[in-house]
């Protein structure tokens, strides 16, 4: 059984409308999205802005309520959970946000930010929590001497480590990492990625890694899904998908990534959004490789 099994997830927004406005237009932010993540996977969900990748991540954690579908975590559909049951489930499913500048409360000390989830979930005595926070600080490579500092006193990379420590406080099994390094400089990115990979091995974590950086995803994820306008258009083992991209959008996306070799041949493939067929079903086109073609 996969750790996470998302089936036919749908989230539509209507835009406009109102008494004197033309009828509202429906934005299909997440449109019948299905995928699964096995325990220990680093699953990459890639797409450009507006593809619905972040909305998908948030629907899984019910930070946004999806319209329809099923999100089975260890076999149980979390979309049917009551509020209190959902709160319990969130111990197992946590999120790391993109922007470590806006996602941490600037008026709280770093130690308190990391401790807060433990308090909310009523775990441990103050002494136990303090010990746990210290342990978490060390786990993510922060100095416990800095517990009483405020977020502004940390660099971007360190702030993201605080965000990661907070996400790990409750010992989750699944981390939804929503563009966790895209706000960081490249050398800092590499360090944070290394930390995420190291934590995966040490804590047996599973990741849903949401990203727009294809080079990064190719390097660290073992499975990938490509989203376009609310749809998954291609999905598979990283190697298979990158070696043999089969949906025209995937091909265009890959061909747009700047090559690091100035002498590499440049053949850019354009994707005509007019030609996009939303209703084409996914089919298996190779071993562990599906595409909507």
């Amino acid at each position, binding site marked *: 059984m996969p750790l996470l099994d998302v089936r036919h997830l749908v989230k539509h927004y209507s835009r406009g409308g109102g008494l004197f406005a033309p009828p509202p237009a429906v934005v299909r932010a997440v449109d019948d999205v299905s995928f699964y993540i096995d325990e220990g996977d680093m699953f990459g969900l890639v797409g*450009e802005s507006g593809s619905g990748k972040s909305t998908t991540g948030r629907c899984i954690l019910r930070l946004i309520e999806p319209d329809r579908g099923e999100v089975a975590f260890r076999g149980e559909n979390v979309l049917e959970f009551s509020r209190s049951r959902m709160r319990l489930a969130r111990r197992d499913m946590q999120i790391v946000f993109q922007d470590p500048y806006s996602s941490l409360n600037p008026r709280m000390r770093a130690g308190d930010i990391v401790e807060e989830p433990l308090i909310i979930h009523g775990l441990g005595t103050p002494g136990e929590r303090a010990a746990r926070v210290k342990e978490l600080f060390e786990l993510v490579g922060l100095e416990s001497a800095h517990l009483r500092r405020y977020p502004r006193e940390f660099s971007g990379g360190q702030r993201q480590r605080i965000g990661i420590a907070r996400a790990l406080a409750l010992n989750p099994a699944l981390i939804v990492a929503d563009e966790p390094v895209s706000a960081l400089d*490249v050398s800092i990115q590499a360090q944070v990625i290394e930390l995420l990979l190291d934590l995966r091995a040490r804590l047996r974590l599973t990741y849903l890694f949401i990203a727009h950086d294809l080079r990064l995803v*190719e390097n660290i994820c073992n499975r990938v899904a490509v989203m376009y306008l609310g749809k998954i258009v291609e999905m598979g083992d990283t190697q298979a998908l990158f070696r043999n991209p089969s949906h025209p959008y995937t091909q*265009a996306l890959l061909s747009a990534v*700047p090559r*690091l*070799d100035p002498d590499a041949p440049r053949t850019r493939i354009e994707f005509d959004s007019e030609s996009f067929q939303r209703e084409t079903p996914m089919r298996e086109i190779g071993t562990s490789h599906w595409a909507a073609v």
Partner: protein
Amino acid sequence: MTPLLDVQHLTVAFERPGSALKAVDDVSLTIQPGETLGLVGESGSGKSVTALAILRLLQPPARVLGGQILFEGRDLLQLTESEMRGVRGGRISLIFQEPMTALNPTMRVGDQIAEALTSHGVAKGDARRRVVELLDAVRITDAAKRARDFPHQLSGGMRQRVMIAIALACRPPLVIADEPTTALDVTIQAQVLEMLSELKDRFNLALLLITHDFGVIAEMADRVAVMRGGQLVEQGAVRQILREPSHEYTQRLLRAVPGMSKR
């Protein structure tokens, strides 16, 4: 050959009472006519401050402490403010990272391009005609109609094309582009970069391309200068820097780029 731009020992400091932080520390670089120099570095490396210093757009507490910025035979640091206004946009123009904040939200984009022309002495009637030509040149379809749009009516990629049209309006020999595609999606980035190199050839522009992305460098640059902490650590031909970087920092930066080993 005389370089188009010859920056010598440029030093810029952020002055505070009792201390001065050198944001740019003794930086020297040259750009030949028609050449693309990639200026790479991480945040705080001083790459954007260098660009602003060249255009004399620094705001206090930043101040140029020393050096020369030779451009077309003149030291820009010695020009009067009104002479500098002729240089900005006329001889050297700037493309910013974030077109939404760089464009005026209350002005039609056609008027903003026209303003770049009329402020450098082009007559209004000529400016109107040139605006449509420029929008065509940056491949905005239906240019005459689009000229009447406001920035918020355009997509991010289109706005960046408008910015490029403004930058190219007076056919300056040097364009400084500060992270011109960083805010764009990768497919849009590819289109904008492709268009930029095409226009560069067509107008024989020199380009100072500021970026943190070695992929963009590999696609665009002839030569590369690497900055760190205000200092230039390495400068050379793009193939040499990407394949055999000699400075330890450049090597580290390149190793941090995902997929460097494979692609």
